[in-house]
C-alpha cells in the first residue's frame, strides 16, 4: 500500500510538472477538475487557450464528476467539469461553504450502446436495455440474437455516465425508480476498458460516450419504444435530438466567473471552442 501510494505520488507530481508550460510562474492559474468523460476535452480546450494566452496556466484533472463537485464544494478548483447536473445535496453543501454556484452548458454528449461486431442484434429499445441491465433479459436469443448469455458491462459508480444510464435507461427516465443494476453487471473503471472488453467478447454489451466509439465495436440503433424510430447516434441525430440518449456536459464555478476563468469559459463557448468539441468527437452546442 505504502509503496503504491508513493509511486502514485511521484507519478502525479511528474504529470503535474509535465502539464505545466514553460511559463510556470504565471499568475493566472486555473484548476479544472471533474468528469472523466470530459477530461480530454478539457485538456484540448486548455491547450488551445494557453497557446493563445501564454500568461494563463490551466491544469485539468479527472476523477469523476463527483470528485469535481467535492473539489468545488471545498474550494480547491476553479471550474468543476461534470457530465451530470449538480445534486441538491451538493448545492446545499456549496452554499454552506459560501459558494455561489454557476452552471454553464459547454457541449453535448451522446451515450452510445456498443456490442461486438459479430452480434446480429442491430436495434434495441430502452425497455430492452433496461431488461438487460436489471437482469430480466439474460440471453441474446430473447432479442433475436444467438443463444448466448449476455455479458452486461457498465461504468463504475463514480462515473457521471453511470448515473445518467441508471436514470435514463435502467430506470427508463424515472429518476428515483425502483430498478437497479443487477449484481451480475460488470463495473469497469473506464470507457476505454469497456471498448476493449466489448471488442474482445462476442456476448458483451456496454455503453460509452460517443467520443470513445471505435470501429472495433458495433453500435445498435436505439428507440424509445418498439414502434421506433430506431436511431443511430451521430453528430446530426444528437444535435436534432432525434437520438434519445444524450446529455449536456457542464461547467460549474463557485462564484460569478471573472478574469481568466471568464475568458476561458467565453473561449469554450465561442465558435473556436465549439470546433474543438467537434474535433474531440463530442457534439457541439450549435
Amino acid at each position, binding site marked *: *500500500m505504502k*509503496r*503504491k501510494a508513493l*509511486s*502514485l505520488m511521484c*507519478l502525479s507530481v511528474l504529470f503535474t510538472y509535465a502539464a505545466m508550460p514553460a511559463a510556470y510562474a504565471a499568475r493566472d492559474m486555473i484548476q479544472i477538475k471533474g468528469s472523466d468523460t470530459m477530461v480530454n476535452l478539457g485538456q484540448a480546450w486548455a491547450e488551445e487557450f494557453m497557446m493563445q494566452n501564454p500568461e494563463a496556466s490551466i491544469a485539468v484533472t479527472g*476523477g*469523476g*464528476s*463527483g*470528485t469535481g*463537485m*467535492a473539489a468545488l*464544494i471545498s474550494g480547491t478548483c476553479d471550474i468543476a467539469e461534470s457530465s451530470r447536473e449538480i*445534486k441538491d*445535496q*451538493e448545492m446545499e*453543501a456549496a452554499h454552506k461553504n459560501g459558494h455561489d454556484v454557476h452552471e454553464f452548458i459547454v457541449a453535448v454528449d451522446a451515450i452510445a450502446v456498443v456490442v461486438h461486431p459479430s452480434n446480429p442484434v442491430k436495434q434495441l429499445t430502452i425497455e430492452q436495455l433496461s431488461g438487460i441491465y436489471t437482469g430480466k433479459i439474460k440471453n441474446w436469443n430473447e432479442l433475436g440474437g444467438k443463444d*448466448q*448469455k449476455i*455479458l452486461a458491462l457498465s461504468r*463504475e*459508480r*463514480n*462515473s457521471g455516465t453511470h*448515473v445518467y444510464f*441508471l436514470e435514463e435507461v435502467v430506470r427508463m427516465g424515472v429518476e*428515483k*425508480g*425502483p430498478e*437497479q*443494476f443487477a*449484481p*451480475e*453487471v*460488470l*463495473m*469497469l*473503471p473506464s470507457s476505454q*476498458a469497456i471498448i*476493449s*472488453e466489448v471488442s*474482445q*467478447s462476442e*456476448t*458483451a454489451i456496454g455503453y460509452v460516450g460517443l467520443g470513445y466509439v471505435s470501429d472495433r465495436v458495433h453500435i445498435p440503433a436505439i428507440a424509445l419504444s418498439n414502434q421506433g424510430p430506431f436511431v443511430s447516434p451521430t453528430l446530426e441525430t444528437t444535435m436534432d435530438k432525434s437520438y434519445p440518449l444524450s446529455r449536456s456536459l457542464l461547467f460549474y464555478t463557485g462564484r460569478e466567473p471573472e478574469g481568466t476563468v471568464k475568458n476561458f469559459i467565453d473561449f469554450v463557448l465561442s465558435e473556436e471552442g465549439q470546433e474543438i468539441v467537434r474535433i474531440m468527437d463530442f457534439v457541439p452546442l450549435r
Partner: protein
Amino acid sequence: MKKFFEKIIEKIILLNGFACILFVILIFFFLAKDGLALFKVSSPIQFFFGLLWNPLAEPPQYGIVPLLLGSIMVTLGAIAISVPLGLACAIFIGEIAPRWMREILKAGVELLAAIPSIVIGFIGMTMLAPFVKNLFGLPTGLTALTGSIALAFMAIPTIVSIMEDAITAVPRTYKEGSLALGATHWQTIYRVTIPAASSGIVASIMLGIGRVIGETMAVMMITGNASVIPHSLLQPVRTMTATIAAEMGETVIGSDHYFALFAVGLVLFAITFVINFFADMALHQQKK
C-alpha cells in the same frame, strides 16, 4: 555539551517513534468515527449479513458480504499461487543456488516488488485477461482468477524475502547434524530446515495475505467488479478495496454512502490488523 546534544537527538528519535504509532491511532479513530456513523441509519445486521451492495438503489443496500467474499476469494487464489512458487524460490535462493546466482536472484525478486501495481494491472488487463478468457472459454477474462494471478506476482517479493531470511536464519549446526546422520540435501531441506523455519514461513504467508488483500488498483482493473456472491474463481468479483476506490469519487461527503465506504474501510483495516498481528507473533516465536 556533547551529552546535551545527544539527549536532544535521543528525544527526537523517540518522538519519531511515537509519531508513527500516533498516526496509526489517528487513522483508526478517523475511520471508526465515520465508519460507525453508518450504523445510525443502517443496522449492523444489514451491513454484515446483507447479500446486496447497491448504494445507488432506492433505498440503498449496503451489504458487505459480496465484497468480503470477493476479497477473500481473490486473496485465497493469490496465496494458493504465490506460496508454492515463493517457497520454492526461497529454498532455491537460500539453500541451493551458488553465491553469485543468489545475489542476482535476490535483486530480481526485489525488482519485482518495484513494479507499480498499476503497471501490473495494465498488463493483466491487456494480456492476462484475454489469455484466461481463451484458456477456459469464458464470456469474459475479467475474473477472480485473473486478479489472483496478478496479485500473486505482487505478493511473491514479500513472501520470498521473508521466507528466505527465515531459511538462512536456521542454524548451520542443524543442517550439519542432519547431513552427518546420512540425510541427503533434499531430505535435510524438507525434514530439518523447513520445519525449523516454519514460524518465519507462516509470517511470510501472513504478510503476503496482508499485501494482497489491501491491493486496489490492479484488482479494480482486472476483476470485473460485479458485486455478486462468487461461486467460482472463474467469475467476476468485486473486492472491498476496489469498491472504496471506485465509489469514493462520487459520494457526497457526509452521506450514508460515504459512511458505508468508511465502514468497509474499517472492516479492511481490522482484517489487515489481525493478519499483521499474527505475522508478528509468528516472527517473534522464531526469534526465541
